[in-house]
């Protein structure tokens, strides 16, 4: 790994993370790595390492964090959350980091597609007459979409 030049980094980044909803816990991390040890993603893909992400954020490696593919690999299983002795709530910190990445326009394509679906149908899957027909055959009530609220709320 190449040497990190602190002067080239953004020391305010950690404060931005901490100001996001759910991000405040990053201040409490003392680097014990329990999160990484508990992480099922890290166990199969070393690109995703919770403690490393925290250290990168604290050092101010804003670009590397927000533009990194690895931040989208969190499965939000809350394994890290349960083992953390400092109550960092790292799963929530990850959501805060991803929300910042979205604000900087580093968004994986699938995520915005889901939002569009919600605005159009109020649900992740469109419920057409075909689906309702299947439901009726099994004696289940029809599903009625209510997209109007979602279009206004989002």
């Amino acid at each position, binding site marked *: 790994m190449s040497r990190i030049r602190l002067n080239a980094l953004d020391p305010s980044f950690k404060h931005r993370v901490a100001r*996001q*909803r*759910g991000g405040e816990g990053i201040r409490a991390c003392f680097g014990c790595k329990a999160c990484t040890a508990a992480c*099922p*993603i890290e166990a*199969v*893909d070393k690109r995703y390492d919770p403690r490393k992400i925290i250290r990168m954020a604290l050092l101010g490696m804003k670009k590397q964090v927000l533009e990194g593919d690895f931040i*989208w*690999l*969190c*499965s*939000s*299983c*809350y*394994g890290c*959350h*349960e083992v953390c002795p400092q109550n960092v*709530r790292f*799963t*929530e910190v990850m*959501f*805060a980091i*991803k*929300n910042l990445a*979205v604000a900087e326009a580093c*968004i*994986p394509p*699938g*995520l*915005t597609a*889901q*939002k569009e679906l*919600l605005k159009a149908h*109020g*649900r*992740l*899957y469109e*419920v057409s007459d075909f*689906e309702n027909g*299947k*439901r009726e055959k*099994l004696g*289940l*009530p029809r*599903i*009625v979409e*209510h997209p*109007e*609220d*979602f279009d*206004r*709320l*989002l």
Partner: protein
Amino acid sequence: MEALLYLGCTVPVRNLNYELAARLTAEKLGIKFRDVESFGCCGFPLKSLDAFETLVVAARNLAIAEREGGEICALCNACAGTLAETAHSLDSDPETKAKVNERLAMVGLRYEGPVRVRHYMRLLWEEVGLAAIRSAITRPLDGIALAPHYGCHYLKPSELTVGFDAPDVPATLAELITATGARSVDYPSLKECCGGGVLGISEEVANAMAAIKLKDVARTEAHALVLVCPFCNVMYEGQQKKIFKETGLDLKVPVVYYPQILGLALGLSPQELGFKLNRVKPSELLKIVESLK
């Protein structure tokens, strides 16, 4: 007791067997479900984009439940987790609640709270109880072995599930399985995540995670893997064929929903419980049930 049935996005479209079995078993055990047509997405899919929007979309459902005057019963771990977490956030933080209500006012809704949110399994555990379930069993599932899978948001974050179950030593699903007369089988990766949360980002990572449990369960004597979440189902049932093909293993792990198992023990037929819709057929299990008649 009565609860507002919250189906979420996935169950009513892709997991009709789960919905059928949940409705039938609830009816048998004295839980009255009320359908609410205007419930929509729980908000979980938006959390990576904007955590505040998740609160707003989740609170929309909570406000509707409040208007209907009932508590919510969800079938999906992610829905139950997101709605319960949102209720917890809004009930404990008046400032956030005010901000969310400002947004909800745009659609004529308001959340005062509290509104209680529980997973169907938690209702079975807390409202019906093991003793009442045991005494309602008409066809004990003798000779059937089942591997439980709880799923992450069933147990975590633990501040939402305290008093119900514990993420380090989960027990409720195993005990609910045992209550049907079946045997609950332990296995090394019992507490592992299914990987469903990253399927949309990396199928390779998600499949590698699901493979761990599928391989473990295939090595046990379990007749099926028992789930309580449609997201987990996407991985263990939907992706199973591909996972075993990729790993070069000639294995098959039948996947069922807990209410289907409970329904069998309550005397309901496999047809009523939607077993036709299970894609990895639990043939051996159903053969044993047939012989129990």
